[in-house]
């Protein structure tokens, strides 16, 4: 009987060996995947096991953490809180015990929870000395005063968004979206948190408060896109100065069609210079420029300004649209910011900022640095040049044209005075079937201080349900908001 017994012994050994192999597979090979699986509750538990690090604006935190009331079933120890939640929501995103995390709260989760590898040594030290684990901080580039001006400006209207950039670096100074939401209201796990969340869902709330309009919504940019078209004309040598006769007929019939490209009102667009055309916002002149340059050249210039690519600030923005494969009339319409052309507010702020920065487009970013709990810098974002849509000479020509718009044209509401020069462009973009819906009011601009430097470029878009049609012009609704934001930035630098 001993021979089969020995074989059974081997068989039992193989059973144990199989289990050992399976366990190694599970706890060694597959361990990381299982450990970091988003559905694995431990990920959420870890995220809220210690007070999260903070998101910081101008030296003071706009977030906080509070200890959750423990009722036995709640295994999450700390809950996120926000100061001025609705105002900062487009920047922070949310970190909710029940509904996950988005934007900065999600992207920099590892730093905020303290799980980042760069904090490992420190955590180990804390563990040895018995101190609780602490999260690091995310220091943003935002400017509290500018953000406040932007948010309060939008608040008076129905919907809209504002983005302000520092042209020389690409730092995002303001990033506001309205209507917004308070991420504190659904940070926990209670029933009221769930109710607050449900109220925000798209199906229950047609105004979509959780939509980050500044980064994730693309609007037809309307006349503000004429700045891009003017840049294309200069860069491609179609015209070499702002004051050259463009030889534009009026009325102008789009090539290949019998449709005239109409201007708004009776404005002096016939054979206008580009300066005049931009000042009065001549569709006929800029439509013809686009048509003359052709789809390829227009697209190339738009791409240099950042169209057709997503931006990572590090929060992702949608790609703005300028189509390819269009005929001349479609290109003409696209060149005045209609047809398929669509841009995020961030994109239009980048356009203004590139012009203000003498043609150099900087990569927009909102995280200045990541710090450890004791404020040592772990990672510092360096300004980065994205592209050069304009030569410095052409940029200055375009600046003088945009400054005329604010001085004498449609953008007079944005004048600041006191040695500050403002250049800008209004826009009123039609949308909806047969322009049935209320147009969007746009304004993009930059400010230049007396020393010639430009501290801020801004893009404002407003969709106002309450305003009547005539009132919705970029100069009327959007320019005052832009002015307040620019003033806030300039004043905070003093």
């Amino acid at each position, binding site marked *: 009987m001993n021979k089969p017994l020995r074989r*059974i012994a081997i068989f*039992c050994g193989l059973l*144990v060996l*199989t289990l050992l192999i399976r366990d190694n597979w599970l*706890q060694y090979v597959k361990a990381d995947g299982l450990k970091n699986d988003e559905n694995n509750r431990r990920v959420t538990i870890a995220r809220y096991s210690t007070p999260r690090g903070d998101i910081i604006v101008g030296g003071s935190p706009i977030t906080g953490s509070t200890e959750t009331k423990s009722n036995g079933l709640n295994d999450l120890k700390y809950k996120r809180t926000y100061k001025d939640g609705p105002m900062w929501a487009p920047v922070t995103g949310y970190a909710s015990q029940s509904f996950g995390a988005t934007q900065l709260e999600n992207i920099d989760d590892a730093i905020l929870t303290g799980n980042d590898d760069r904090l490992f040594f420190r955590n180990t030290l804390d563990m040895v000395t018995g101190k609780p684990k602490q999260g690091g901080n995310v220091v943003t580039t935002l400017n509290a005063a500018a953000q406040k001006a932007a948010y309060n400006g939008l608040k008076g209207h129905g919907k809209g968004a504002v983005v302000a950039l520092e042209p020389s670096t690409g730092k995002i100074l303001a990033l506001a979206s309205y209507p917004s939401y308070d991420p504190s209201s659904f940070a926990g796990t209670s029933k009221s948190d769930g109710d607050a969340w449900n109220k925000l869902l798209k199906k229950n709330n047609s105004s979509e408060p959780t939509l980050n309009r500044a980064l994730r919504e693309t609007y037809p940019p309307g006349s503000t896109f004429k700045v891009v078209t003017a840049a294309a004309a200069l860069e491609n040598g179609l015209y070499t100065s702002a004051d050259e006769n463009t030889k534009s007929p009026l009325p102008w019939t789009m090539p290949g069609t019998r449709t005239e490209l109409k201007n708004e009102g009776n404005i002096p667009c016939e054979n206008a210079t580009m300066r005049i055309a931009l000042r009065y916002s001549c569709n006929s002149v800029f439509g013809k420029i686009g048509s003359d340059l052709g789809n390829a050249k227009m697209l190339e210039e738009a791409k240099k300004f950042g169209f057709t690519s997503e931006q990572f600030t590090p929060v992702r923005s949608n790609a703005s649209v300028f189509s390819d494969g269009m005929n001349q009339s479609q290109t003409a319409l696209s060149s005045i910011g209609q047809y398929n052309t669509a841009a995020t507010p961030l994109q239009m702020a980048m356009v203004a900022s590139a012009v203000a920065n003498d043609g150099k487009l900087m990569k927009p970013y909102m995280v200045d640095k990541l710090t450890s709990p004791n404020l040592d810098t772990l990672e510092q974002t360096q300004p980065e040049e994205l592209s050069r849509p304009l030569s410095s000479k052409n940029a200055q020509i375009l600046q003088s044209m945009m400054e005329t718009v604010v001085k004498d044209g449609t953008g007079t509401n944005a004048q600041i005075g006191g040695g500050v020069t403002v250049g800008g462009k209004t826009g009123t973009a039609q949308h909806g079937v047969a322009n049935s819906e209320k147009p969007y009011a746009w304004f993009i601009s930059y400010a230049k201080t007396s020393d010639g430097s430009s501290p801020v470029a801004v893009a404002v878009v407003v969709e106002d349900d309450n305003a009547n049609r005539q009132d919705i012009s970029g100069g009327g609704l959007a320019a005052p908001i832009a002015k307040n934001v620019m003033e806030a930035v300039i004043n905070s630098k003093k």
Partner: protein
Amino acid sequence: MSSTTNSPTHHTSTIGAIGAPSRRNTELALLIFAVAIPVFAYANVGLAIDNRVPSGLLSYGLGLGLLAGVAHLVVRKFAPYADPLLLPLATLLNGLGLVVIWRLDQSKLLQAIGQAGDKAPNQLMYTAMGIALFVVALIFLKDHRVLQRYTYISMVAALVLLLLPLVPGLGLPVYGAKIWIHVGSFSIQPGEFAKIVLAVFFAGYLMVKRDALALASRRFMGLYLPRGRDLGPILVVWVISILILVFETDLGTSLLFFGMFVIMLYVATERTSWIVFGLLMSAVGAVGVASFEPHVHQRVQAWLNPMNEYKLSRSGAPGMHSEQLQQALWAFGSGGTLGSGLGQGHSDLIRFAANSDFILATFGEELGLAGIMAILLIYGLIVERGVRTALAARDPFGKLLAIGLSGAFALQVFVVSGGVMGLIPLTGMTMPFLAYGGSSVIANWALIGVLIRISDTARRPAPAPASNPDAEMTQVVRP
């Protein structure tokens, strides 16, 4: 005391009795470790959870130490030549199980759903009952061959035990598997006891029939095919296993009994063909039932895609869906190589049966790959000591009983931990000694008792031949 007690002392024959050392002191030394490790682990849990040494440390430590001490003294007195490893290994597992059950008692989540809170004192009580049965077995079962007399009574008893959960009013379906009965406020898993009783029956039956089964066969394609009528017993056991699977919907119990029978049949007859038959029959049975029986089918689906099962369970989809397996896999994965440390994991997320069927997941998360490998090796050692006992036993009944019990033990460990680790479909059985549950602990202590009894008989030196002045000329022939 110790090794000299029973050694022949003053004979002068040329052939001395084999003076095997009793190894009782080795056992005692190992036992000290087997009690000290859980005590240390217990303190560890308390420090991790409350930052202080738990107040129950002394009582648990003394309790476990006392039980182990009593068991050791009884072995020393009544089975002095027993295998020295079995008792310490079982004590260690039982002690670690107690610690982890106590650790899960501290989980607020499990307390809130009534799955934990006061389980550790119960488990200590079950352990005491288990050790009591162990002691009774050693004291009253002077020789394991006595069990041979109860071959057919065992058969009846085993069948009754297996069928009990199907009796209306007594049976209690838990998560679909009907392997429990309710008596008063106690729930009992009769299958755990049936395991031992059935091994006695198989050993007795096969010892008598083995020649017929082994020799009367035809050779075909290199295999010895048994005669048709000799196929009877294996067919009967197969049918019973299938019936268990269909009516009690428990793959584990079914696999365990059939596997144990095939192992014992193979050992009794030394015919490889039985293994081939056994594998074929269990494959046919398992696949057949899994395709037609909805509950078993569903368990197989859950095994194939635990993540999908988790999502179905979360979304409240109709049907019986359980997120347990996926939760267990996350627990193992989150433990990684060295584990989170005792008391610092979140295996309570498994919720239902976290401290019984799924207790291995808590070990996996808190002690890591290292801890699980150690525990699996301890189980492996117990099995190999059992097989060694079978090898050393001098009578066929003892050999068969020992290999049956250790084989069943090995299969149970494989089926349960394989199920929890997602290697095979889940079954409703528990890890011997580790898991919470009276039936399991008591039955497994009885199993260890029987193994210790067989090993004592096996390792006991032959009685010394009478002292004889003509010893030099006498050839002593021993059996």
